[in-house]
């Protein structure tokens, strides 16, 4: 955890220093303590800082959400970006913003609500004499495909001229990072994470199987419902500002598990991993090529896809996939 915090600080420092407007470390430091030029003040205060904080908040939301799903459903593939949660949240998001012009807290709450409705629907679709995580993954892939179709349709009917703005909803991007958008998202994220924190111990007990957990005094169904709802809400909050960023949720929990080297899913550690992962991806997206910058989602996708393939191969080999 300490190592991850240091990594996070290093990444954030890098992100503060890098950019088209070249500022010296001295100028950046001066601006941070309130003594920079107005130009530097704008670049740091309105462009770089909100973007860094958005990456941290969104990454943490996705990391925690992924870890919550994976440990509750006991399947590494059952993360919100694979089972269609982020995809359906982005449909609600694109409709709310492009069609209805929502913003701020209203936007966050509407996207959370929409994602919860979508998650309930998918749960019912995948239910057949019990729940199998694998069926949920299959239903989710279908839902994700439908959702991306809906997003494209909405975008093609709208008068969005800027391809970058549209790409937010197709691949996910941090280009929209502003204080105005960040504040409601952060407030929602903190509230939900406190809820997740309260449920951490019973959730870790659920990993032992429903019967063992019930024997240990965990109210199984109630705990699962509360924690999944929190996971859906966290993913929705992240999507409402940054779009359906791929694979951050999928990878964070797995990376955290390997970092910890125990069976403990380490929900908090997954949050740190998610934040670091997204911040690093965003740096790559912005600065890997000198001439163009990608939407962040392209980078998380490029890194995440091989990871997904590796997980699939591994789970079918060990037979844990069914």
């Amino acid at each position, binding site marked *: 955890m300490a190592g991850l915090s240091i990594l996070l600080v290093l990444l954030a420092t890098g992100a503060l220093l890098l950019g088209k407007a070249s500022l010296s470390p001295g100028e950046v430091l001066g601006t941070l303590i309130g003594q920079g030029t107005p130009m530097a003040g704008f670049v740091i205060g309105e462009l770089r800082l909100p973007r860094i904080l958005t990456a941290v908040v969104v990454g943490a939301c996705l990391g925690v959400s992924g870890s919550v799903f994976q440990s509750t459903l006991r399947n590494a593939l059952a993360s919100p970006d694979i089972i269609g949660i982020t995809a359906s949240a982005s449909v609600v998001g694109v409709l709310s913003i492009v069609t209805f012009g929502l913003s701020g807290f209203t936007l966050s709450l509407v996207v959370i609500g929409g994602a919860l409705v979508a998650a309930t629907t998918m749960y019912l679709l995948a239910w057949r004499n019990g729940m199998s995580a694998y069926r949920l993954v299959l239903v989710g892939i279908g839902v994700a495909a439908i959702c991306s179709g809906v997003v494209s349709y909405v975008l093609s009917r709208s008068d969005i001229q800027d391809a970058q703005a549209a790409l937010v909803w197709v691949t996910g991007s941090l280009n929209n990072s502003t204080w105005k958008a960040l504040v409601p998202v952060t407030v929602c994220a903190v509230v939900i994470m406190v809820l997740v924190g309260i449920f951490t111990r019973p959730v870790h007990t659920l990993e032992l199987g429903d019967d063992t957990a019930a024997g240990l005094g965990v109210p199984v169904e109630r705990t699962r419902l509360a924690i999944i709802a929190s996971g859906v809400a966290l993913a929705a909050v992240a999507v409402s500002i940054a779009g359906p960023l791929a694979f951050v949720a999928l990878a964070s929990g797995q990376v955290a598990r390997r970092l910890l*080297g*125990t069976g403990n899913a380490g929900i908090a550690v997954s949050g740190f991993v998610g934040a670091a992962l997204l911040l690093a991806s965003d740096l790559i997206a912005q600065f890997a090529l000198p001439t163009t910058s990608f939407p962040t989602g392209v980078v998380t996708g490029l890194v995440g896809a091989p990871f997904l393939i590796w997980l699939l191969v591994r789970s079918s080999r060990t037979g844990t996939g069914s």
Partner: protein
Amino acid sequence: MTTHLPPAAAIAHSLEAKDLALGYPDRRIIDGLSVNIPSGRITAIVGPNACGKSTLLRGLSRLLAPSGGDVLLDGRSIHSIPTRDVATVISLLPQTPQAPDGISVADLVGRGRYPHQGWFRKWTTADDLIVDEAMVATGVRELAGRSIDELSGGQRQRAWIAMALAQRTNILLLDEPTTYLDITHQIDVLDLLVDVNTDAGTTVVMVLHDLNLACRYADHLIVMRDGAIVAEGAPAGVVTPELVRAVFDLDCLVLPDAVSGTPTVVPIGRHHRPAGTAQPEA
């Protein structure tokens, strides 16, 4: 193997089922069953496949809500007691417990402390001591740092029993604790349960497949068929060729176990005849 566990709880708790019905409204597995679990003894529930013995155990452990009747813990309906409070009195080892990938033995055993910790009550040195004692009692302390999936079946089962012991309950329920184990480890696990019973006065209730091991290790047998109790009592008084035929549809001889003197069921089968008889007693 000796245990160093002091008595888990000074008070013995009572567990009974009254007119218990379990299952679905259209398909009752158990209907109108009443039974009293003897405190401080070892009870084995036996019977053919699908006789409802695991269902009864799940009912007794409050995992199944009854569709009729009730399970009483110390005279109170078990479903009226907060589930975490029940977990300080009754521990349960399911038939196929699952462990998360890579969890260590010590971590798994530590999970048994769950019901004793609240939102604010954190892990203490007392918890460490209890976990350590549970691992010593089950002989898995040398394996504390090992991952569960590296262990043999017998070691794994002992680690799970250690988790149940760390729960420090007066009543221990186990669903087929010897399944998938070879004969050596079956005996090992059953000996361990006797240790727990004699050292801590723990009431042990287990579903067992093997009738002969049940006769040897249990003080009290509950024999079931078709969701009902056919007979119960001390094995020597209960197990007869007539009972085995009535419950298992099996012709057999019942002889004294050469080691323990408890009844042993020797099946006859279609291709063999007991020495000195022309016909199986049909």
